[in-house]
């Protein structure tokens, strides 16, 4: 790889010459950024940057390494805050590699003028989340930027984990015949944050579902299931998580939309706002792809952690790579990658 990287200009797939908000949305534009700029510059292997974390072997020890940045607005929402997300998000990325979280770094960029009381609150949330996840924050950094140059707080956490899954857990292992299990209901986090941010006053409080996922993953690994792929759901929701796996694995997923659990208040909120729960962000849910023979037992295991866990789909040979197909009255249709966040509809 050349040291003097010069991307073709404009990079393939990118339109325009400026970064837009949609580039951070986790959907199509984010993929374009990764495929157009970062992969050509940095990827050494074809499967680099295709999954949540990197797998490294250091003196025989199999480790996972991951990083994530948190720029959520608002900073505080029902069920958590940016600190909670910063810990759980990275712990969960490690879990998706089949890795037990060992240590996290914590870097904060603070905006001049942020209330110290808010920072205190965030720090407490970080401590509580780290305790709940069974991980230690071992190193950190703090910077301050001028007023107006940051949204209060930006956080980056990087995480190191010890891989205990015997076989690699990567999208490439997903194969036709596999079953997809979803660990719980969807839509809570995105609705909670949107309601808070835009000031939609629902009297019923919808709380974010943010939670650490290592415990259920460890249980699955402990029972020896042959986990092919795990993916925690974040921006872009269930639909985006499934499409990304389908694209990376070169397969098609048949999704049973009716099998996806959406709790009543979230369903009601989505109906009122005209948004699709399949695309709403989650922060404490994951999907697992594994052989059909093990599905029932694995589901039983996950239901011990969340009774809303369900089998929601199966993997097929691809007639169109990356298609996630649902049944409608009039036939099959494929879900598309969203380009940016869903907006509440008036019409």
């Amino acid at each position: 790889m050349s040291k003097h990287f010069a991307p073709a200009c404009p990079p393939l797939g990118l339109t325009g010459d400026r970064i837009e908000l949609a580039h951070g949305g986790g959907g199509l534009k984010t993929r374009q950024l990764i495929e157009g700029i970062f992969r050509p510059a940095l990827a050494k292997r074809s499967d680099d940057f295709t999954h949540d974390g990197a797998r490294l072997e250091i003196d025989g020890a199999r480790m996972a390494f991951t990083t994530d940045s948190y720029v959520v607005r608002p900073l505080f929402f029902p069920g958590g805050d940016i600190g909670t997300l910063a810990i759980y998000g990275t712990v969960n990325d490690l879990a998706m590699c089949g890795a037990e979280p060992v240590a996290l770094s914590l870097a904060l960029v603070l905006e001049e003028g942020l209330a110290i009381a808010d920072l205190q609150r965030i720090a407490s949330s970080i401590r509580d989340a780290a305790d709940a996840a069974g991980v230690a924050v071992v190193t950190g950094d703090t910077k301050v930027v001028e007023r107006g140059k940051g949204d209060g707080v930006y956080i980056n956490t990087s995480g190191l984990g010890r891989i205990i899954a015997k076989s690699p857990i990567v999208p490439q292992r997903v194969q036709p015949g596999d079953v997809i299990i979803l660990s719980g209901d969807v839509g809570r986090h995105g609705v909670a944050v949107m309601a808070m941010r835009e000031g939609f006053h629902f009297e019923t409080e919808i709380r974010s579902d943010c939670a650490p996922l290592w415990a259920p993953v460890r249980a699955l690994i402990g029972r020896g299931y042959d986990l092919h792929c795990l993916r925690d759901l974040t921006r872009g929701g269930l639909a985006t998580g499934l499409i990304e796996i389908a694209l990376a694995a070169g397969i098609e997923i048949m999704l049973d939309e009716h099998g996806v659990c959406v709790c009543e208040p979230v369903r009601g909120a989505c109906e009122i706002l005209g948004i699709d729960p399949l695309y709403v962000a989650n922060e404490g849910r994951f999907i697992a792809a594994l052989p059909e023979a093990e599905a029932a037992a694995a589901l039983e295991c996950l239901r011990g952690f969340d009774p809303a866990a369900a089998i929601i789909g199966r993997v097929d040979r691809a007639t169109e790579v990356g298609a996630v197909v649902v049944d409608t009255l009039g036939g099959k249709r494929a879900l598309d990658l969203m380009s940016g966040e869903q907006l509440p509809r008036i019409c």
Partner: protein
Amino acid sequence: MRHVDEYRDPAAARRYGDAIAQITTRDWILMEICGGQTHSIVRHGIDRMLPWGVSLLHGPGCPVCVTPASVVDAAIAMASRPNVIFCSFGDMMRVPGEAGTLFTARASGADVRMVYSPLDALAIARENPDREIVFFAIGFETTAPTTAMAVLQADREDLRNFSMLVSHVLVPPAMEALLSGPHNAVQGFLAAGHVCTVMGYVDYEPLVRRHKVPIVVTGFEPLDLLQGIYMCIRQLEEGRAEVENQYSRSVRRNGNERARAALAQVFTIEDQAWRGMGEIASSGLTLAPAYARFDARKRFPDIVVPTPNPSECISGDILRGLRKPGDCPAFGTRCTPEHPLGATMVSSEGTCAAYYRYRRLEAGEMALRRRA
């Protein structure tokens, strides 16, 4: 959810699909004029259940779609004024004018806020007496009464810092324009159920008499749409042209009289431009003289709005039902949901966006449509 889930029963839907196939003996061209109905039809694959010879066109029923680019530019200009808090419905914020979108205006520092209701904008005005609040009042007759009530409340409280950029449009004049137009091929209409919840269907009776086309007031769930389509085709097959009401649980012939009275009090009717369709006579609402002080156009008389440049966008023809998204040379290439040229690609139920999102398997479909 009650009054929702019952109308999504797949078994009943298939029976209606069969029935439609059974009664259809020739080709028919129907049109629905409602973004919400378009969304539901495409999402549930309703049009794919219909016999090959039945075409369901998507008319100009999306208020986000038909708002002229010049009005979006006026909105951006007002939002960019210092001290203004500009309030808008969410899906309107992504609509491109010539000067960008409300989102790009926000990225440049304008205080643009997403609201669910005009009453939210009113609340912001009360909470921020030192700021100038402008509400982007778009929508058809369903939404206009909500704007009217906000004006009436603002008037009663004598709010000084609140105004509205009004761009409401009316459906019957658009239908009249379609039916009178030289290229009209539409033989039957599904009328928008929620517009009729407010307005009733009295206004459609003269249309039906004049143009001899059946009009069926239809709801939004799959069973509503299928029943509405069935009723419309049955009329066509029997040579009738009447107004029928499928959505009787929400629509009465005279609509909601209180809401209509509020509209008559707060607004007057004027000619209005529809994006991609030119001007349609008596198809828009503007604030009545008694409420002129709440008109943002009068509050910002110096806002200069650029004349739109012609582009390759064919959204006008698509809204008129003359062409489909696949006919557009830019569809899926230069024009996509991430980079929309016209409003039919912007709104999630805009025809082009709907096709783009839900049609990826069209090439591989097997016999999902029936022959009569």
